[in-house]
């Protein structure tokens, strides 16, 4: 109810309208949603989390546990907004939450009638049985019945900003104490205030509508500024919210204090609220929360309320409040009923020590004021005003035990739950919190923690100081995910990397696959082809004619220096000292634990110059690995590493016709087997551009990798492709690349390996130079466990029907004991049957026997064969 005069924050000359649960209401500019609802006589604004009890507005600030509403519509809707913090604008639309069909008639309230079945820890006691019962029965039920507002399903149309700021002094809290501290602070001063803009202070950057929600090491404060939330959607421009990351020389906390509720049966009824909140609504908004008010406990505000026009009766305590959707009477200590329309709780005060505590600031219990106050510490911020403990000394009103006497209003925890937990032995404050969930709601227990641990202390005949508080953690109040993400979403958080030939792939209808951040052609379907047919066609073209693959994404590291060869000799398992210039070698790289880390070909370009090729997705990790050893273990080696992945474009030309294709466009080098053998490099020209040709094969066929300056990558690719027209050159993608390499038993890092696989497990012991005195992983490969005969080894599998990658391998159809798993599985284009690779215990000794691949309810018989399915003699590599 609005009184005739007063209301420092509202503009009585103007009227605005808003709707709450489809009801059109009026208010004044300057109102919060809470003050506007109270001005319209509306106390019932929501239903509680667990019991669906009618709930009203408790506070006038950030600590509000009950009045959570959904603001806005469609994709702009924001659930769980505190009505006390929403600045009203003309046309605002708000809805109540957690009630069906309506907040006035909520079927969910039946759970309240059954509340004796939902005591503390009911999660642990009630929902027993199989995991299926949990996922199919209990969880959907709980999710429907217990909860807050639903999140919008459409993408968030708003955008959010981030700012980094630095200052000598950061003051948090724009009340009297905070403003006074900011006014006398020196250097750059930033003042953060949660409320709407107030008068500026000379020399102070004042950020209004800004909540500091977390303090972190080295004086970093995170705050969220609500830039446009207070405006009608049509008037909003710019970011909706801005995340501030402020690094301060010194921090002054002026965060105030929260009056604590009283505990008595019915203390959660709409119309029961904090005395200080009622005074705020009268002073700032000219709103009287009731005409017949019962004031309990601290009665220092009685005169102001009477002056506002209310009839006020004061009691030091009451034994219960009564009513259904709004409080209608109380039972006084004399056992008589007194009719009322509002009950004000004059509780004691708890300083808002959250930010003080976030980085380990200690607090101590002040028995006179019955609250925790911050302990001054030079390593912690300086607290001033109410948050430093300058709060009224109010004698605590003892709790009244009885039905529906709530401790935590947001999570529906009663004093009986606290008592039950104590009886069951949850006497540590941290255990009590987790068992009863008190203080674990979105309000972080601002109005419940002190009452809960005071009750625990009473039950244990101890004191709150001895029981202690739980740990305060950020955020102080909820923060939108949008503000945390800022602009770091979609392509700005996960950029797409394109090769120089990307446009050609798009023009040729490639389907793309994400490999790390790279967009790689996956396959090139022709009209009417599905993926399977396209891949089989592409593979056959490579086996019988010639194909081209864009390999530009391959990791490339330039390695230079007088000790480059010695360095490679230490990081690869095989020997590198005697590699001739212009020759290439396949190498396996292990971690110090002996497990395979990467593989690839490295080429000696000059006496002191090499280029290393890495797995596409592993390029950065390999460079980091090499840099670490070079800087920290072998700083005496003169070697320099440079990532050149994006400097070079690479096209693979492979198949029996590859040499014929290249001979049409390559000038400056002899392509014959004798002049240019496998694992060699030659420099040449294509279409006027300098290229390096490498004889490297990942298909088993005669193969050339054509590398050139990335700027000419598209031109060289197109020249090669044109030259290939007479041979029916076929572009192929990563899927065919995988099939072709799997037929040859070539591994893919991350597919055949998972950090537990040694070179020998993969059949690569030929690539281990046992005579070398040292290389990374050598000592570990000699550990007994690495030499066991029953290690999982890479083998080929011929299943009688297709099997999925990841399927478990067992010895017999009915077994559950696992011998290994399927790492790669495809349809072989050369044999026209399914085939797979797998890691199988003692796999090489099982060649010629059968195993079973199990997945779901299926068990498929597989013949164990050598990992090399195609051309085991390797005759095709020379064309």
């Amino acid at each position, binding site marked *: 109810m609005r009184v005739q005069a007063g209301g420092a924050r509202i503009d009585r000359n103007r009227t605005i309208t808003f709707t709450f649960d489809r009801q059109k209401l009026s208010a004044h500019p300057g109102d919060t949603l809470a003050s506007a609802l109270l001005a319209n006589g509306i106390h019932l604004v929501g239903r509680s989390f667990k019991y669906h009890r009618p709930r009203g507005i408790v506070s006038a600030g950030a600590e509000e546990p009950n009045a959570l509403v959904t603001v806005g519509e469609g994709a702009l809707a924001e659930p769980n907004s505190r009505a006390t913090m929403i600045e009203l604008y003309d046309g605002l639309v708000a809805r109540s939450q957690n009630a069906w069909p309506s907040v006035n008639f909520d079927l969910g309230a039946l759970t309240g009638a059954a509340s004796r079945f939902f005591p503390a820890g009911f999660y642990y006691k009630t929902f027993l049985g199989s995991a299926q019962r949990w996922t199919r029965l209990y969880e959907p039920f709980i999710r429907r019945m217990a909860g807050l507002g639903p999140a919008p399903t459409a993408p968030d149309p708003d955008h959010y900003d981030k700012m980094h700021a630095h200052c000598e002094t950061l003051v948090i809290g724009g009340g009297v104490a905070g403003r006074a501290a900011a006014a006398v602070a020196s250097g750059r001063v930033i003042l953060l205030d949660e409320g709407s803009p107030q008068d500026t202070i000379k020399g102070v950057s004042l950020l209004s509508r800004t909540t500091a929600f977390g303090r972190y090491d080295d004086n970093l404060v995170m705050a969220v500024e609500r830039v446009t939330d207070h405006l009608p959607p049509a008037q909003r421009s710019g970011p909706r919210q801005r995340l501030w990351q402020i690094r301060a020389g010194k921090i002054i906390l002026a965060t105030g204090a929260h009056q604590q509720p009283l505990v008595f049966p019915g203390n959660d009824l709409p119309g029961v609220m904090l005395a200080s909140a009622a005074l705020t609504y009268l002073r700032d908004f000219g709103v009287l929360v009731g005409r017949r008010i019962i004031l309990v406990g601290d009665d220092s505000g009685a005169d102001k309320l009477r002056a506002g026009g209310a009839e006020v009766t004061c009691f030091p305590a009451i034994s219960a409040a009564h009513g259904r959707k709004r409080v209608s009477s109380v039972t006084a200590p004399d056992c008589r009923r007194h009719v009322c329309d509002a009950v004000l709780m004059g509780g004691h005060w708890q300083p808002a020590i959250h930010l003080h505590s976030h980085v380990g600031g200690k607090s101590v219990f002040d028995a006179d004021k019955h609250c925790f106050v911050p302990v001054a510490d030079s390593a912690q911020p300086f607290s001033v005003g109410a948050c430093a403990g300058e709060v009224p000394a109010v004698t605590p009103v003892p709790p009244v035990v009885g039905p529906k006497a709530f401790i935590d209003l947001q999570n529906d925890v009663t004093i009986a739950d606290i008592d039950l937990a104590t009886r069951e032995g949850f006497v540590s404050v941290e255990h009590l919190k987790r068992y009863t969930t008190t203080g674990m709601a979105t309000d972080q227990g601002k109005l419940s923690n002190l009452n809960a641990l005071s009750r625990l202390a009473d039950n244990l005949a101890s004191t709150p100081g001895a029981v202690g508080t739980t740990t305060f953690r950020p955020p102080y109040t909820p923060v939108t995910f949008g503000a945390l993400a800022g602009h770091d979403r979609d392509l700005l958080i996960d950029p797409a990397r394109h090769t120089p030939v990307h446009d050609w792939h798009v023009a040729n209808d490639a389907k793309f696959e994400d490999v790390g951040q790279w967009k790689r052609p996956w396959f090139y379907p022709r009209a009417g082809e599905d993926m399977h047919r396209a891949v089989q066609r592409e593979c056959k073209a490579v086996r019988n004619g010639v194909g081209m693959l864009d390999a530009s994404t391959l990791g490339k590291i330039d390695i230079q220096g007088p000790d480059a060869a010695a360095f490679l000799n230490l990081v690869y398992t095989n020997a590198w000292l005697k590699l001739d210039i212009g020759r290439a070698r396949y190498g396996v790289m292990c971690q110090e634990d002996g497990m395979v880390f990467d593989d690839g070909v490295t080429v000696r370009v000059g006496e002191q110059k090499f280029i290393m090729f890495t797995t596409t997705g592993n390029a950065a990790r390999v460079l980091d690995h090499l*840099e670490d050893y070079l800087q920290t273990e072998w700083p005496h080696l003169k070697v320099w590493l440079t990532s050149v992945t994006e400097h070079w474009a690479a096209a693979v030309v492979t198949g029996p016709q590859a040499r014929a294709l290249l001979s049409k466009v390559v000038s400056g080098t002899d392509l014959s087997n004798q002049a240019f053998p496998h694992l060699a490099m030659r420099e040449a020209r294509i279409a006027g551009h300098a290229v390096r040709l490498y004889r490297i094969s990942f298909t088993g066929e005669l193969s050339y990798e054509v590398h050139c300056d990335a700027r000419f990558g598209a031109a060289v690719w197109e020249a090669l492709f044109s030259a290939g027209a007479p041979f029916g050159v076929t572009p192929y993608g990563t899927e065919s690349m995988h099939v072709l390499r799997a037929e040859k038993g070539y591994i893919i890092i991350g597919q055949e390996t998972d950090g537990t696989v040694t070179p020998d497990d993969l059949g690569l012991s030929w690539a281990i130079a046992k005579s070398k005195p040292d290389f990374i992983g050598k000592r570990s490969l000699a550990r007994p466990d690495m030499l066991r005969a029953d290690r999982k080894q890479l083998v080929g599998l011929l299943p009688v029907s297709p099997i999925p990658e990841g399927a478990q391998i067992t010895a017999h159809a009915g077994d559950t004991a696992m011998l290994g798993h399927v790492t790669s599985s495809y349809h072989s284009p050369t044999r026209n049957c399914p085939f797979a690779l797998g890691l199988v215990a003692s796999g090489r000794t099982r060649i010629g026997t059968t195993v079973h691949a199990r997945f779901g309810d299926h068990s498929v018989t597989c013949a164990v064969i050598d990992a090399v399915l195609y051309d085991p003699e390797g005759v095709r590599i020379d064309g």
Partner: protein
Amino acid sequence: MLLIPCPHCGLRDQIEFRSGGESDRARPADPSGLNEADWAEYLFLRRNEKGLHRERWNHASGCGKWFTLTRDTRTHRFVS
């Protein structure tokens, strides 16, 4: 978020760095000369110090250099 003193670039936000764990574990000059226990000690065991901890940091998003700092694991303070 910590401020980390890179010896080459000065105080920078932790987000620019990668932690490399316990320092002062030089790779043995001749790993093959070590017995199983000594190699396992080097490979797997860390002191997990409560208190002053010498640790490796890499200024990954800055100069790229590895360096060693001493941090009190109880307070996160770096000490020189």
